[in-house]
């Protein structure tokens, strides 16, 4: 006899090959281990498949008696599903206020706020503390970055007239060649860091991903501009590559961010502004202007992150100083900026092939370097260095700009 207190689920014609387990499972959720659920339905294989499903899920099936009207089999609820989730906990909460400072490695790739089954593999992420990566501005910067993405194909008028004198065009191509090399470093570094940051710090990953995507676009537009008039690419000097290679080897997130974004990309803001101002054609102007907008965001995150660090860790200034000195020592015997790049900048600022114009161009590049130095010092002071320290450190920055 069926007991009116025992629930019965009617699967009608639904088979276990078509998802009948969902209805059974749903009913079992409301029962305690040991309680029974009656199951009925019209599928001829219902009892065979019910037994299979229950066996695999830790429930027991007993056949219905002839007197169990309206029931084909009974399921006695097991406890495997309860055991699986017994120690589960939430991975913080989805919002920024739900970030856990030190998330366990085995939370791995789970969404922030997800219910985490205990166990699972350790993950390879080695940057696992909030304070090592965080800046309060990160979510806002990501939102801004996501909304400011531009399409290289349409944001730039590639058909605009470019009829530079050959020596000027060669200078543009040389500068573009140099920019591509630097942008490639600026893509690889956040991409490497991104893969090391615990995904619990979602906004930081998103920001680094967009930063890498920004650099990918910059690589594209600088390459297209370089090749626009059919010239060969310019030169790549050992000194430039040596300088960038020291960035690739910086293991600490904050120091990599400091050297690349605060000092390197910070200097690039001046360089890109210089190119915008002295561009001999509208395409060159547009590609440098668009790139500069993106770079400003990268600098903002770097500065905000280091400011956050400085409020938490009094030792961070010493580490920044050491990072600059270490890099300076590594580069002390190298030539600095590729002479071809320097000369090309002079030619672009000169605007004409006369002694007076060249002198004017040379003066402009000197001024650019001075502006870069001022900008770096300003940011260093903003990070808490004294004016003297900022001046000393800025002077040790690579002559390669990035």
């Amino acid at each position, binding site marked *: 006899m069926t007991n009116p207190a025992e629930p019965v689920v009617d699967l009608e014609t639904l088979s276990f090959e078509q998802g009948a387990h969902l209805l059974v499972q749903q009913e079992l959720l409301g029962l305690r281990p040991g309680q029974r659920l009656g199951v009925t339905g019209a599928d*001829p294989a219902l009892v*065979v498949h019910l037994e299979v499903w229950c066996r695999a899920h830790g429930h027991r099936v007993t056949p219905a008696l002839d007197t169990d009207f309206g029931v084909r089999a009974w399921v006695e609820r097991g406890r*495997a599903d309860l055991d699986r989730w017994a120690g589960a906990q939430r991975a913080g909460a989805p919002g920024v206020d739900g970030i856990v400072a030190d998330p366990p490695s085995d939370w791995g790739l789970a969404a922030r706020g997800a219910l985490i089954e205990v166990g699972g593999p350790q993950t390879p992420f080695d940057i696992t503390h909030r304070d090592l990566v965080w800046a309060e501005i990160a979510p806002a910067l990501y939102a801004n970055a996501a909304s400011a993405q531009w399409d290289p194909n349409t944001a730039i008028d590639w058909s605009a007239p470019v009829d530079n004198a050959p020596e000027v065009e060669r200078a543009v191509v040389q500068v573009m060649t140099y920019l591509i090399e630097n942008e490639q470093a600026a893509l690889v570094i956040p991409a490497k860091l991104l893969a090391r940051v615990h995904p619990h710090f979602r906004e930081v990953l998103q920001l680094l991903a967009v930063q890498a995507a920004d650099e990918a676009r910059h690589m594209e537009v600088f390459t297209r501009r370089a090749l626009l008039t059919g010239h060969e690419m310019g030169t790549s000097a050992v000194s430039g590559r040596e300088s960038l290679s020291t960035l690739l080897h910086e293991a600490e997130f904050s120091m990599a961010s400091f050297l690349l974004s605060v000092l390197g990309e910070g200097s690039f803001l001046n360089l890109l502004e210089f190119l915008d101002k002295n561009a001999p054609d509208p395409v060159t102007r547009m590609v440098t202007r668009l790139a500069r907008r993106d770079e400003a965001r990268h600098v903002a995150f770097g500065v905000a992150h280091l400011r956050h660090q400085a409020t938490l860790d009094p030792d961070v200034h010493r580490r920044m100083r050491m990072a600059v000195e270490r890099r300076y020592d590594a580069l002390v015997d190298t030539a600095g900026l590729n002479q071809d790049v320097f000369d090309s900048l002079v030619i672009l600022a000169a605007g004409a092939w006369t002694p007076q114009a060249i002198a004017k161009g040379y003066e402009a590049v000197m001024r650019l370097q001075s502006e870069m130095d001022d900008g770096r010092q300003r940011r260093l002071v903003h990070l808490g260095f004294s004016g003297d320290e900022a001046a000393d450190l800025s002077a040790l920055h690579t002559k390669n700009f990035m």
Partner: protein
Amino acid sequence: MTTLLMGAVAYDPKVVTIWGGFRSWLRARDFDFDFVLYSNYERQAEDLVEGRIHTAWNSPLAWLRTERLAKAAGRTVRPLVMRDTDRDLTSVVVVRTESAAEKVSDLKGATIGVGAVDSPQATLIPRSFLREAGLEPGNDLSVRRFDVGVGLHGDHIGGERDAARALLAGEVDAATMIDTNHLLFGREGTLPAGSTRVLAQTGKFDHCNMSVVDTAPDDLVKRFGELLLSMSYADAEVRPLLDLEGLKMWQEGRTTGYGLLETAVDEEGFYDERGTVTATEYSP
């Protein structure tokens, strides 16, 4: 303290993950455990009875052979534990939905697809079931065997899947498989839902067990059994291994679920009473 040495058949690469994982778990509980892998069940059964290993994770067919070999050698063996999912299984005889067959006897003169020659669930028990229903395989109906993974006692799913595909393709009139695989094939699309019908279901039988031989040190065997039985699905460390091995909990071993297979083995002359392999067309 001696190491408890277990044999397992490497029917799938996951066997290494499973027993390697259990080995770590057991060792973390101060139990010295190790395992050796066999390519087929026959050598494992022989080695267990000869005392080269203390226990063997045996297929039901290997268990029966182990029992016979042990008896002939004056030894005793017993099933220490088994999975909760090893108890009370059934096999099914499946036809296409539109088949005219309404009962097993309607398969007279038909062609039936079965699994590998040494598969308890897809060949031996179903053949015995047909015989009991009055259909002598080979005489009253043709049998097409799908030999995949011979020597693995049906652990390899390939034979059953091939038989199922042949059924769907109309190459055979019926196919036999373990109940679990009928649902699996339905859900994965090998047998689209509604394309087949369960014509008949065998009686219940048990599957694998952890066989132990009486020459194994009692204290080690006892502790091994206690530790396996203590494994909890609530333990996050061991749960993935239980999932991989397909159980929620270990249960005490029992010998009461092997009657159908024993009958089948005798009918087929698969092993003689001393455990010698006498099956024809069987080369593990």
